């Protein structure tokens, strides 16, 4: 079963995300910000994929991504940024930091499904 971590400070976004991931039959974990997400990764080092917001309190998505990529995990998860930042500069920055995909909010179920297919998770 695919283990998915949703990182977003908005409860609503996590709820919508969870509903979509439930449909795909994924095991879903949630975190409210980057630091929270690092804890989840420590407890579940076999997380397959992360849907990652950018702007969050405590630790933002980009900093989390950099921290994640430097962890000695058996297998690095696939990371899809999921943010309202939708200009080339932001996209470039995230890709350079090791993101695999990039979703520009607002997202729909179709978009999430297509993107998961693009990265080979679905």
């Amino acid at each position: 079963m695919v283990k998915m971590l949703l990182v977003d400070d908005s409860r609503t976004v996590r709820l919508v995300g969870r509903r979509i991931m439930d449909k795909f039959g994924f095991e879903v974990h949630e975190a409210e910000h980057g630091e929270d997400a690092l804890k989840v990764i420590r407890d579940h080092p076999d997380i397959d994929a992360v849907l990652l917001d950018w702007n969050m309190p405590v630790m933002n998505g980009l900093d989390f991504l950099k921290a994640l990529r430097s962890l000695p995990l058996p297998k690095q998860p696939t990371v899809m940024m999921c943010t309202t930042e939708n200009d080339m500069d932001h996209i470039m920055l995230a890709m350079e930091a090791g993101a695999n995909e990039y979703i520009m909010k607002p997202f729909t179920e179709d978009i999430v499904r297509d993107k998961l297919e693009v990265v080979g998770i679905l």
Partner: protein
Amino acid sequence: MDPSDYEFLSNFLMKASGLNLGEGKAYLLESRLIPVAQSLGLSGIEELVQAVKTMPTPQLKTSIIEAMTTNETLFFRDKKPFNELADLMMPKILEAKKLQRKIRIWCAASSSGQEPYSIAMQLKECIPELSAGWNVEIVATDLDNQILAKAKEGQYTQFEVQRGLSIQMLMKYFEKNDQGWQIKPEIRNCVTWKQLNLLDSFNHLGQFDVIFCRNVLIYFDTDRKKQILDRMAPQLPKHGYLVLGGAETVLGICDSFNRAKDYRAAVYNPAHAGIGLAGTASIRK
């Protein structure tokens, strides 16, 4: 809706565009055609039918047909046909065309352009040798003039560019502007656009190495499907390919094509390769 109006519109759509409405689609007619009626200052379906009967101007007919046909599409739809185009079809085509060095691909119902542009991007990405002296022409046709105009612009919303397109392809081949994202001229210039009703003759388009005819035959009844497929076969040379949509087949409809071996997408070769015998019974089985 009055049953006679339903019958009239259903016959009209069948004749004009081949659209096979069938029964029990009154809700669809109403939801699509009431806005058309209103935009013409008419009260509803009844007056619209009256207008078609008394003054069937080309504009009136076109706006009804365009409102009824579904334009839904996305980039790299179903993925497989595009991968197999690059991995399996192109090596054969490059070999067959090594003297002419000219390749022609036809997208027979291109809608808002995602399909022909996906073909262009796929070829750029996967077959770099094409840039060395090969002439590649992608001809995109559709019945709907309005959607063709949009396709030609290559301008897409944030929603559209996230459907089927990887972020790497988006960054490489699109430019962001105030309205959304526009495909770059290097890809836009690979495609030529023409208005074409598949029920009309298309032999003036000439021969193609590949025909993409995806998710449009579903609108036609069996006779019209057969008629279109039989006319497509002679447009393909011996090494040519016909690509249909994921849920489509020629099986039980016509004998002009054989399923291509080793393909997972719905890919066919002409049964009577380029010798103008399309429509007669298949000799190869």
